[in-house]
């Protein structure tokens, strides 16, 4: 492919087919290895548009990339042009009830800019995640129980589909992982910042008591986050070996009311994966388990010695593993308990079996309509 064409479009410094860039952009958080043709760092919508039109003409795969943190291989290239959105990171406007941003905006930077307002879809690591990437996987939030997912907060996106059409769409394209189009602008709803909050940190010896507590909080709208840490994980985190529940409320219902203490407890929770991964449990999964089978799942984790934590309030957990071979057993157990695989991290390359047949057929139909040449994020999801 003609490098000069790209140099004219994005500038010499914003395109590369050098080996170091190709190697680095051939992988992501999943550690799967793909193959990059070239990398472009786009700064404007018209550049993205031209790249898609060019790629369509020569039938070349295009992969949109945010922070590259996908654990399921959502941005692995197959001899593709990588369109890195890191430099398209402008907050274009902030209004009373909405904000318009470019896809490379980092969530933490957005919330900092909003001051008294707040965008409540906060994944565990808001310091690196980009709004574009979050749209791609319909990102969930630590406050999902109260605020739902990304789709609930996107009003409109500007997207370039595989036919090269630049159009505006509603939230229906959220969660399609870049296989229908490249998002270049996002209009997000925002809300008032949470000022009053409290927390409970509870320890349990018995799984039944813990599950009963979670079930009793299901309809408590003030309990916006319910996080769990299992005994194996707590031991690896240098905590007393127990079952833990961390419950955050948006009123003063909880016993802990000091904001610094609340932040300290959240930080312990945030470092859970760090502590667990440092002891070689480096693969984190994201199954959904219905509450009526949660106790059985927690017993299974304990029996197998699998460290686990996660937002139990929305019935999602993060069991961690040392190798991919062990995951097959997890998948079988999750299916047996009427759960779903891939509840939070998207489908990408690794979780295709998590996609139900109806959704798959609908996505195949949409792919045919939006990207009949199959150039966008090739090989993912379907």
């Amino acid at each position, binding site marked *: 492919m003609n490098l000069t064409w790209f140099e004219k479009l994005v500038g010499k410094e914003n395109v590369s087919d050098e080996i170091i*860039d190709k190697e*680095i952009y051939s992988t992501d*958080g999943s550690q799967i290895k793909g193959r990059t043709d070239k990398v472009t760092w786009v700064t404007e919508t018209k550049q993205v548009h031209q790249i898609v039109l060019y790629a369509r003409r020569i039938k070349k795969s295009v992969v949109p990339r945010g922070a590259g*943190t996908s654990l399921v291989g959502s941005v692995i290239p197959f001899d593709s042009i990588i369109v890195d959105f890191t430099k398209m990171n402008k907050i274009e406007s902030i209004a009373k009830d909405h904000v318009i941003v470019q896809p490379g905006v980092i969530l933490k930077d957005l919330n900092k800019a909003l001051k008294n307002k707040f965008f409540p879809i906060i994944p565990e690591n808001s310091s690196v995640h980009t709004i574009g990437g979050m749209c791609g996987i319909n990102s969930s939030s630590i406050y999902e129980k109260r605020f739902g997912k990304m789709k609930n907060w996107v009003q409109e996106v500007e997207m370039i589909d595989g036919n090269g059409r630049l159009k505006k769409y509603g939230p229906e394209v959220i969660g399609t992982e870049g296989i229908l189009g490249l998002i270049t602008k996002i209009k997000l709803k925002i809300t008032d910042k949470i000022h009053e909050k409290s927390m409970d940190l509870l320890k349990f010896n018995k799984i039944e008591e813990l599950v009963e507590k979670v079930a009793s909080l299901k309809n408590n709208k003030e309990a916006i986050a319910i996080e769990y840490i299992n005994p194996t994980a707590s031991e690896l985190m240098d905590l007393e070996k127990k079952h833990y529940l961390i419950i955050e409320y948006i009123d003063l219902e909880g016993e802990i009311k000091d904001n610094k203490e609340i932040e300290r407890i959240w930080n312990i929770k945030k470092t859970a994966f760090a502590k667990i991964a440092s002891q070689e449990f480096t693969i984190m999964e994201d199954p959904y388990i219905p509450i009526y089978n949660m106790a059985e799942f927690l017993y299974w984790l304990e029996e197998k010695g699998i460290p686990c934590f996660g937002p139990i309030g929305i019935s999602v957990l993060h069991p961690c593993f040392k190798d991919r071979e062990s995951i097959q057993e997890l998948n079988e157990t999750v299916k047996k308990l009427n759960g779903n695989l891939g509840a939070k991290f998207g489908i990408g390359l690794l979780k295709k079996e998590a996609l139900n047949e109806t959704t798959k057929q609908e996505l195949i139909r949409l792919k045919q309509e939006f990207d009949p040449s199959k150039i966008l994020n090739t090989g993912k999801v379907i």
Partner: protein
Amino acid sequence: MADIDKCILCGLCRQDSSLLKITGKETVTSRGKAILIKKGILDKIFFIDPMNDITVAHCPTNVEITEEIRKQREKMVEHGMETKPNRRMIENLRDFGNPYGEQKKQEIKEVFS
């Protein structure tokens, strides 16, 4: 397990890289460097980026990336692949005890460190 093998490519180090904010390029991050080290790729990028921008503040597996970069630089020197300024700096250190080379007395009035 070698220290660099502990890197799980999670990308959390992106928040520690001030150069990433300027260049937008993954090559400047610790993850970028880790991928190249794992691949055994020797490149001038290991000399160009300032070490003080490479931190492990948010690394979940505590990879000592600065030490890994130092080793990579060492390998490049062994293979004669170091940059010219680096070679000159080392020669100056050996010959004059400072990285700048021979200095006339008037040249440096004060030294801050």
